[in-house]
């Protein structure tokens, strides 16, 4: 009796997990089959039926429409991610290894920036970018992402540097290394995983962002999320192109997620759980 029961339990567990996995994959299944269908075959009644042959035309059509915005998003995401991780690494070094009187308060004040609903800063941001001539351009958008990324990347790097033992810094100090020498010789070389975690986090956030994309840029500088919303908006669209567009928009972050999932999860937890 005792030999069978755990086994039945185990089977139940896998059946449950398998069912949930199917449920979570349904939207992806629907997207894939719709994107690969011959547009003429798309109708609501056969929505669940997979295509017999793969048609790539929807992808080329979607990419012609999204291409320039895809490029905008690449430039925006790469630049802003690079700039904010460098800032975050330096800040993290201060808040973790060079605490001074009041540094905890300053750090807490920084953190507020990652929890605000961004509507609260949108109007002044819009006005300031306009008055300095950055409104509408990609550079204005990059500025916004770098500035409002400071809190989370600082937090990620601080948590990361907290794990580097003080004794390592002490031995470098005995060897005569000073403030920036320690950063260059000890901290920075150990930071690669920190840069990966913070970089993936920022890349995902910036690539997926929409509110600033739609309010702070003109047509020629709009990111891909805005492009997809335009593509899929309106009522008379055929669904193959929005689905192909969704896949194109999702692809860069999905690739990152599949190959560097572990770091992605660490970034996810960094914002809340103490490592």
């Amino acid at each position, binding site marked *: 009796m005792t030999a069978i029961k755990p086994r039945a339990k185990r089977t139940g567990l896998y059946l449950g997990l398998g069912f*949930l996995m199917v449920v979570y994959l349904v939207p992806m299944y629907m997207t894939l089959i719709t994107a690969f269908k011959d547009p003429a075959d798309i109708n609501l009644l056969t929505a669940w039926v997979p295509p017999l042959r793969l048609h790539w035309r929807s992808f080329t059509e979607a990419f012609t429409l999204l291409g320039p915005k895809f490029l905008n998003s690449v430039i925006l995401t790469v630049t802003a991610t690079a700039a904010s991780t460098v800032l975050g690494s330096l800040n993290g070094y201060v808040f973790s290894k060079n605490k001074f009187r009041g540094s905890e308060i300053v750090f807490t004040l920084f953190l507020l920036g990652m929890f605000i609903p961004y509507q609260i800063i949108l109007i002044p941001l819009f006005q300031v970018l306009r008055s300095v001539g950055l409104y509408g351009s990609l550079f204005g958008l990059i500025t916004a992402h770098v500035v409002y990324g400071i809190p989370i990347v600082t937090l990620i790097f601080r948590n990361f540097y907290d794990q580097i033992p003080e004794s390592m810094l002490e031995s470098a100090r005995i060897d005569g290394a000073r403030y920036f020498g320690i950063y260059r010789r000890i901290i920075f070389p150990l930071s690669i995983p920190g840069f990966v975690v913070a970089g993936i986090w920022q890349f995902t956030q910036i690539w997926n962002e929409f509110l600033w994309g739609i309010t702070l840029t003109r047509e020629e500088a709009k990111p891909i999320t805005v492009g997809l919303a335009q593509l899929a908006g309106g009522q008379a669209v055929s669904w193959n192109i929005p689905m192909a567009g969704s896949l194109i928009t*999702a692809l860069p972050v999905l690739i990152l997620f599949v190959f560097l999932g572990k770091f992605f999860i660490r970034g*996810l937890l960094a914002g*809340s759980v103490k490592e």
Partner: protein
Amino acid sequence: MRAQHGLGRRADTIKSILVILPSLILIGIFVYGFIGNTIYVSLTDWGRGAGLAERPVKNFVGLENYVQLFTGFIHARFRQDLVNAIFYTLFVLAGTLGLGLLLAMLLDRAVRADALFKTVFLYPMALSFIVSGTIWRWLLAPSGGINLLPTVFGAEKWEFLWISSRDTVLSFNWQRFPQIVLIVLSVIFTALLLRTALARKSVHSRKRILRFAALALAGWLLVLLFGAIREKVLPYPEPHGFNLATLGIIIAAVWQYSGYTMAMFLAGLQGLPAGIRESARIDGAGEIKYYWHIAIPNLRSITFSAVIMLSHISLKMFDLIFAMAGADNANTGHPSVNMYLTTFRANNFAVGAGIAVIMFMLAALLIIPYLIHSYRERAGL
């Protein structure tokens, strides 16, 4: 030697301040300065329809914009948006926490291929709300997608309008809004009072009991008072409630973020010492007992963090609503969508700022205590 060390420390502090100075200035202006500016703008008329002027001559109007938002005839949609925001937050929280905990408990049992399962449950998190919104709009199309699923099993297809339903349940009259808020607060304080009073005595409990008793009493007195004078915020009844059209958006959000809570809870469960589980088993506690009495109570601080992050995300629902229902669909509205329409379509910056401030205040209710708590923990106070 010691003096030199002291000097070195001071030099290091100066270097530290110089390193964080650029970030400090940027945060100071772009976060704190801008919040202050938005609050100020919300107290003005933005030069009365100066619209897109770069430097409008603003006139101070006090709380007029807020009075308009809460009681003005033309802002009825904002009030429904506010009610929607509460329901969005509650249902998204309940859904993601419940489902996330279930997934974490399933994966906590030394499952084979757990990396595969984790990847599948988490991939929605990597998507933009615009991507998931576009996909779910297709899945929830009125005469296709999910509604066709029953036909696979030979049943009738569903007719439910996931995003475009016009039905509302749990309606209440906005005229009674102050009373309802007071009653809810009083019930909460009374519950807290009972909980503290019935719990085991601790050093602080007497002070706490007194505090909650005073708050509960004040609440109920105000309820009676308001009931007696029958103060009405509107001259006419205005029903608001839970719009069923928000269900489709809630489902999409839960699909997208339950993987996040799963990851949080799983980290918490796996962080528990292995010995606890063993000794619970030896004591004869089954799986259910182990989770209910031992594991879940230990997840309290993780749940708190998850609630903070998810509430923040639920205020970011703008993208998802925009992609699934469009900004103009009043049934699925949200203050963030309204803020966008009011500010950037109607060019009514002052009222838009008012909406933003109300959203900020709601967020601050959770965030400020959370930040103070985390500061105290870090500083070891």
